[in-house]
């Protein structure tokens, strides 16, 4: 007899695949596209690589709709031994990330044809990266956050260098890679220290452990907080960890930057919400001041340094830093209203920033080098519709009423005032005023100055046209009718979601990924 007693049935954690469907679709689609890409011609008249990628990114949105109602009615679903938690926030941010991917695919098709880089690789990497982002949005375990972050980042390192014949693209890839791997190591050390202090990497476990135990020596835990903030701060480009942003945004292919500023940022903030607002909710008095300081520095650095830029892509990079500061203001509130404001900001900013870099993609022309402010001279006469689209995006980023950017800032500041962070709100408003100068300078260049003789006119590819129209409609539409999205954010954080005040018991105390 091999066994002394009859072996008992092994207890394995159940995996509810329906809850993981969005991630599985993205991963499966990426693998399928890679195989199909090897079988079908690289260059064809019909953009089937892009269409396949968009279908793959659209399917998770459709599969998320039943999940949305299910989590709304039944509360969060805990899957894979509580390592993943599918709730309203997961579904909401999953849809935001997938929307960013669709916009990027639309922009990428025209770009890749123009630069003679046709092929499935960019789309495969984009889908894989989005899968990592959706995993991060649903992570309920620090190790899952780390794995999602790496799946997200490693694909984007390659995407930054996808323009193989352009030296700047390779340089951006290397800088992003070295600093990204460096920040991942900090994140991981933070995870290790939190694990040492609490005995688990499960966020629900950490939350209940910290709520029920008083640590006599919490120096390890606090060091862990700080290192986690450094690691995630790098990803969302918060100052003082922002140094890579302008270089990488400047050098990377413009459609990829659209994804970096929308998808990667969204996933990073999803992780910050999960870790700090949810996991460390009983240590608010310890982490809130740190996030407060980081938010102030980020707001000021982003807006002040944008003023001196003469390259539009770098300017947009600094403006994306200052937007990260605004989102951190919402995180710092650590209330239901703050989290809702963060979600609203991320959803609207995805469209605005993808549209902005979409315009930069087209104005950059073949070679992707014409990004100086002088290249935008007289754009209103050369390409009136393109200039109008950029005008809408810039005004939205400046926070002009009747655009989505105004409401996003309004909600964030409202949350800050609500949680009595008056000075932070004041700094944010000041930063907004400084940024407005930057955006208006571009608008004046486009509308006020005449183009030099022989300045090129632009043909906007069909895909980019759809992306720009969709972004303009979303930016103005959400500015005039914000109600449905704002209500959706309420559903997303409801129940024992992100900012619950009661502590729920973990279904499994031990963990490890």
């Amino acid at each position, binding site marked *: 007899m091999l066994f002394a007693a009859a072996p008992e049935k092994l207890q394995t954690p159940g995996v509810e695949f329906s809850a993981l469907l969005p991630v599985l679709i993205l991963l499966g689609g990426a693998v399928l596209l890679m195989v199909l890409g090897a079988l079908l011609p690289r260059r064809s008249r019909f953009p089937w690589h892009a269409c396949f990628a968009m279908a793959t990114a659209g399917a998770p949105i459709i599969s998320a709709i039943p999940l949305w109602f299910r989590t709304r009615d039944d509360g969060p679903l805990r899957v894979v031994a509580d390592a993943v938690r599918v709730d309203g926030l997961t579904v909401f941010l999953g849809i935001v990330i997938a929307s960013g991917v669709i916009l990027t695919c639309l922009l990428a098709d025209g770009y890749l044809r123009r630069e003679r880089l046709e092929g499935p690789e960019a789309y495969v990497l984009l889908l894989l990266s989005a899968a990592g982002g959706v995993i991060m949005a649903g992570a309920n375990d620090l190790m899952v956050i780390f794995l999602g972050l790496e799946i997200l980042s490693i694909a984007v*390192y390659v995407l930054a260098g996808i323009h193989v014949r352009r030296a700047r693209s*390779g340089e951006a890839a290397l800088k992003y890679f070295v600093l990204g791997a460096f920040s991942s190591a900090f994140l991981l*050390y933070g995870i290790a220290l939190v694990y040492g202090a609490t005995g688990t990497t499960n966020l629900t476990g950490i939350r209940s452990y910290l709520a029920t135990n008083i640590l006599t020596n919490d120096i390890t835990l606090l060091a862990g907080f700080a290192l986690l903030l450094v690691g995630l701060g790098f990803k969302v480009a918060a100052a003082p960890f922002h140094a890579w942003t302008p*270089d990488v945004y400047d*050098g990377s292919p413009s459609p990829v930057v659209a994804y970096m500023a929308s998808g990667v940022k969204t996933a990073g903030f999803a992780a910050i919400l999960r870790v700090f607002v949810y996991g460390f909710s009983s240590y608010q008095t310890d982490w809130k001041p740190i996030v407060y300081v980081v938010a102030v520095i980020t707001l000021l650095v982003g807006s002040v340094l944008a003023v001196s830029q003469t390259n539009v892509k770098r300017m947009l990079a600094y403006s994306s830093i200052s937007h990260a500061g605004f989102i951190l203001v919402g995180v710092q509130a650590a209330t239901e209203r703050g989290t809702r404001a963060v979600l609203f900001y991320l959803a609207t900013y995805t469209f605005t920033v993808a549209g902005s870099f979409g315009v930069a993609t087209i104005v950059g022309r073949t070679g992707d080098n014409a990004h100086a402010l002088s290249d935008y001279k007289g754009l209103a006469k050369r390409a009136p519709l393109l200039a109008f689209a950029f005008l809408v995006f810039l005004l939205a980023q400046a926070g002009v009423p009747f655009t989505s950017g105004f409401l996003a800032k309004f909600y964030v500041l409202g949350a800050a005032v609500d949680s009595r962070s008056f000075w932070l709100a004041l700094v944010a408003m000041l930063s907004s005023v400084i940024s407005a100068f930057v955006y208006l300078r571009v608008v004046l260049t486009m509308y006020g100055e005449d183009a030099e003789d022989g300045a090129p006119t632009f043909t906007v590819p069909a895909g980019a046209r759809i992306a720009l129209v969709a972004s303009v409609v979303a930016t103005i539409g959400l500015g005039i009718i914000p109600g449905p999205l704002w209500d959706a954010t309420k559903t997303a954080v409801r129940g024992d979601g992100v900012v619950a005040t009661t502590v729920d018991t973990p279904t499994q105390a031990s963990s490890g990924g």
Partner: protein
Amino acid sequence: MILAAAPGPEWYLTLSALLFAIGTVGVLIRRNPLVMFMCVELMLNAVNLTFVTLARQLDDLGGQVAVFFVLVVAAAEVVVGLGIIVSIFRRRQGATADDLSLLKG
């Protein structure tokens, strides 16, 4: 006698913190991308040592499992990182990060 004392978990935690610090300083001061990259690997392995020590101290398998995840991720990073480095420096003589100075501001 100090040699007679069996090294406790603090020793390993201190060692891994030191290794992590060496890796951090290395990334910041070395200019060769390959060496910077090796320093990142050193940081990741320092964290692995922390994980194993803590797992032992807490008597919990989770930390040891985490090491496997980290190893896999580090391997994936090596593949991508070396690919990027090779693709850049095939066109150049030598490999220092100071040569990469097109992007400034």
